[in-house]
């Protein structure tokens, strides 16, 4: 049976990991290669690196980092952040990334997804979507109202609304050839109060590719809910893992006990 994936996400700026300074067993907790090795040993199922560098020099650094990681870590790597062109994708894939994620550039030019999928295969192309709830947050409880919830796509690191419906966009991106959806709830992100289950579930139902839930993990139950109720195929988490609130091992053990198929 296919297992659900637990994916740590590392933000990298100018070659340094910007979150997760609290690791105590690492010589250099800001070194992406050290952190990748740490999570590899811990049993993470995959790794996502988000390059939040603003400069071209930083981009070159990221390519170099991916090269070094792929020599030490034998697990799937996704790299995203600021990838604009086929050439950007190619550089990351040739450096050793297995998948590249695109966000803003794909909204501006959806054919980028199609070109990427044709060149490298759908399995290499992840559509990253930052979605924000339109009709109220938190979602109304005990509702009699019939209006289904809706979410809007934001780009440029969540700063710019696009007017595009997130569910529609996910569906379209998959039609263009995206092989996976990395779905971040902007409402839930950073609050550690749980993933947006409705959003996750809606995208999971609307698309026929794997969906990675992102944003909001605060405790182990949140992972369970995203996987069981949200129908996510994988959960992405940053601070809950980086700051040592819960380890990968502990997370996996808990989920396995709850009956979620997990690779231990």
């Amino acid at each position, binding site marked *: 049976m296919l297992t659900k994936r637990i994916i740590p996400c590392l933000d990298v700026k100018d070659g340094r990991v910007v979150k997760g300074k609290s690791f105590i067993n690492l010589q250099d907790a800001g070194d992406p290669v050290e952190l990748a090795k740490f999570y*590899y040993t811990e049993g993470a199922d995959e790794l996502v690196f988000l390059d939040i560098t603003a400069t071209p020099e930083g981009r070159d650094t990221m390519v170099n980092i991916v*090269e070094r990681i792929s020599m030490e870590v034998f697990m799937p790597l996704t790299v995203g952040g600021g990838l604009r062109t086929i050439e950007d994708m190619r550089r990351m894939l040739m450096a*050793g990334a297995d998948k590249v994620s695109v966000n803003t550039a794909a909204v501006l030019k959806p054919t980028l997804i199609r070109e990427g999928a044709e060149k490298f295969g759908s399995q290499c192309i992840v559509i990253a979507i930052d979605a924000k709830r339109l009709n109220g947050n938190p979602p109304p409880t005990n509702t009699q109202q019939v209006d289904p919830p809706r979410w809007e796509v934001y780009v440029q690191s969540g700063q710019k609304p696009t007017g595009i419906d997130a569910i529609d966009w996910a569906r379209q991106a998959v039609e263009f050839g995206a092989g996976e959806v990395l779905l971040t709830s902007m409402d839930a992100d950073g609050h550690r109060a749980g993933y947006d289950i409705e959003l996750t579930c809606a995208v999971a139902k609307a698309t*026929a*590719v*794997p969906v990675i839930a992102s944003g909001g993990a605060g405790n182990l139950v949140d992972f369970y809910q995203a996987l069981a109720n949200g129908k996510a195929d994988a959960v992405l988490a940053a601070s809950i893992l980086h700051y040592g609130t819960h380890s990968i091992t502990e997370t996996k053990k808990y989920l396995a006990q709850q009956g979620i198929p997990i*690779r231990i």
Partner: protein
Amino acid sequence: MTEQKVIAIIDYGAGNLRSVVNAISRLGYQPKVTNRAAELLAAQLVVLPGVGAAASCMANLQALGIDNTIRQLITENRPFLGICLGLEILFTATEEGGKHECLGIFPGQVRKFPVGLKIPHMGWNQVKQRGNHPIFAGIPDSTNFYFVHSYYAEPEDKSMIAGETEYGVHFSSIITRDNLVATQFHPEKSGEIGLKIYANFISLADRRDSGRLNMRRQ
């Protein structure tokens, strides 16, 4: 240190072979990435990584004139490892991109997963072992390996099926015939246990039958 063996990785121009190179390098070998028939025939072990689409893979192998080299290597029972598309391409034909002829070394069709499943089949899944091929040395039954694929092969000769995995259907996730091994999963992405698959594969070069063939060739 391990004795150096000549390991060739077939580069048919579809892209990223780095993970496979890295995995083999990690085990202390220096694999040779090549698309030249002479180098493939001179190697003790040959790896066919799976990158890209089946049709372009076939076209490239034919254009490079190494489709027949691959047939020869397998016919001569030389240690050969196919990965993902490198497994699928060994069979008769694939449904990928309509219908395309493959190498036809083994009779069988390559089919797409049925509708209703999330495709690609992406992530870690268990391989149920059948038989006791040396590729499984030190690897427990039902170990998880990393998969990412939309098609799977149905060998006509069921005795080739060395391992099966369930994803909507039960499919052949590893096939073997003597010194031929082909995996639908990616051992180079499957952690330390995946590296063990490479190590076991490389050990096939020490078997007497493959050794004799190599001696004769050199």
